[in-house]
């Protein structure tokens, strides 16, 4: 346990000092992408990995965060940091409402309902202006944000936010809240009989995940400087979160972190060279992981330690 903590701290400090080495912009962008995915996959894992409710609509909150920040900054002139905070809160409030109804469903029904929510959110942003004959979300044209910062700004923002997400998951994993989530995952009826208000815990963690994803979405909008519904609500983002969490080990603290690191780098190195075969390979890797390593890469590490 202490080893994991020290290792995590060492990685964090090394990444903090990395810009001093004076690398090219490419490395900042790649690492920023990794941090974004560490944050997203960890946030997704908090609800889905810990409670077993597989959320297929996580991108909905990512999109809401993107749009909230973009609109607040361009329309209301609110600075970046308050904007991402408000964006996070808005997406959390939305999740409280959505979660009240979807969290009653179990298994595939929950997955379908959340998928439908994210798709509906995308359609609303796409068609709102045309339907009501206004100019607000700008439909498929998207929104352009001001360019004001260099790569290191986003590097640090992503690094700190992603680290905070991981620390949060780490803390929750070890306290009462985490026990409630794990009890829900493993035997929801027994959890109720043990006095756990399962619905309250499920909806709270779902909203917490949405806040985190919403904040990350906000940073993403400012980073990319251009967002459109088809891009920030793209279901592929949800699928990426799921794949990364499963690959590293869902329901664990560091699994999604490992998954995000490995798969983003693999995508960068292999994916950019072998565009089509890479997806095929990714599919096979995932198949092997799910079948032979149901606990992900983390499971491989702890299994080795047991055998020794």
């Amino acid at each position, binding site marked *: 346990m202490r080893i994991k903590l020290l290792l995590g701290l060492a990685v964090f400090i090394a990444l903090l000092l990395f810009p001093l080495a004076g690398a090219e912009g490419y490395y900042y962008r790649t690492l920023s992408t990794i941090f974004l995915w560490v944050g997203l996959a960890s946030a997704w894992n908090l609800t889905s990995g810990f409670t077993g409710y597989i959320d297929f609509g996580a991108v909905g909150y990512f999109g809401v965060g993107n749009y909230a920040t973009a609109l607040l900054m361009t329309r209301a002139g609110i600075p970046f940091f308050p904007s991402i905070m408000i964006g996070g809160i808005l997406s959390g409030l939305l999740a409280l409402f959505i979660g009240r109804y979807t969290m009653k469903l179990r298994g595939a029904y929950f997955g379908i309902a959340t998928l439908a929510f994210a798709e509906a959110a995308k359609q609303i942003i796409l068609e709102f202006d045309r339907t009501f004959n206004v100019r607000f979300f700008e439909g498929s044209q998207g929104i352009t944000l001001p360019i004001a910062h260099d790569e290191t700004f986003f590097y640090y923002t992503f690094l700190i936010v992603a680290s905070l997400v991981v620390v949060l998951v780490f803390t929750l994993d070890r306290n009462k809240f985490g026990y409630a989530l794990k*009890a829900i995952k493993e035997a929801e009826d027994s959890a109720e009989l043990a006095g756990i208000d399962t619905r309250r815990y499920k909806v709270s963690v779902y909203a917490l995940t949405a806040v985190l994803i919403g904040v990350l979405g906000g940073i993403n909008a400012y980073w990319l400087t251009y967002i459109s519904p088809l891009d920030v609500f793209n279901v592929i983002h949800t699928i990426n979160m799921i794949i990364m969490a499963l690959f590293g080990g869902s329901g664990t603290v560091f699994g999604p972190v490992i998954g995000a690191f490995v798969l983003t780098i693999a995508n960068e190195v292999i994916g950019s060279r072998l565009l089509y075969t890479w997806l095929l390979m990714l599919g096979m890797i995932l198949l092997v992981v799910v079948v032979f390593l149901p606990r992900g890469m983390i499971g491989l590490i702890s299994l080795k330690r047991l055998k020794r």
Partner: protein
Amino acid sequence: MSVLALRDLTKTFGALKALRHVSFEVGEGEVLGVIGPNGAGKTTLFNVIVGIYRPDGGDVSYRGKSIRNLLPHEICRRGITKTSQIVHPFLTMSVKENVMVALMFGRNLTLKESEPRAEEIMEFLNIRDVKDMPSTSISLQKRRRLELARALGTGADVILMDENLAGLNPKELEEGMGIIRELKKQGKVVIIVEHIMQAIMGVCERLIVLSYGEKIAEGIPMDVCRDERVIRAYLGERVCSP
């Protein structure tokens, strides 16, 4: 005053009347047995009391207050919980953690406070030897004991035990009966559903017999098992000498 009172309790599943106007009361420190053939509604009765099912008619009250519209966790915190016939432990947690969850949420304790209390409960139920094992890798007997440990962990004073003694060997059965008597001494109300007549006759002060969702008999065990209707509906033969 009665601790738990059921009045005209009715539960239907589609066309099936699982419970029909069942009424009874349980008093302080009492051990009540519920018997009846398979499908008589015993488990449904428990599930309605603890709030897993909502009754279609009638009322359940705990210490004079109706609990029929409460959720299982609310009922648990008031003071009623059950052990399930099919055990559902929290799989990846250790035995101790399973008990700690019940202590933390049933009694609103912190993680730290719950640990020593879990040790006490495991000591009492004689499962301390497996406390650090994952709940998946202990024997069925221990898992049933763990169900009971979790129920006690919540601090409930009414414990419903659904076939918690099934499948045990004579020695384990004797130990299980001893635990129920000890719970009574501690002032708990225990309601047990059981098919093992030896256990029923050994620990229960009063019996209720269900058949097709109806209460067909109630009384002290000796009288109930001589009742002709009970023999016809469930026992099949005389289990106690006339």
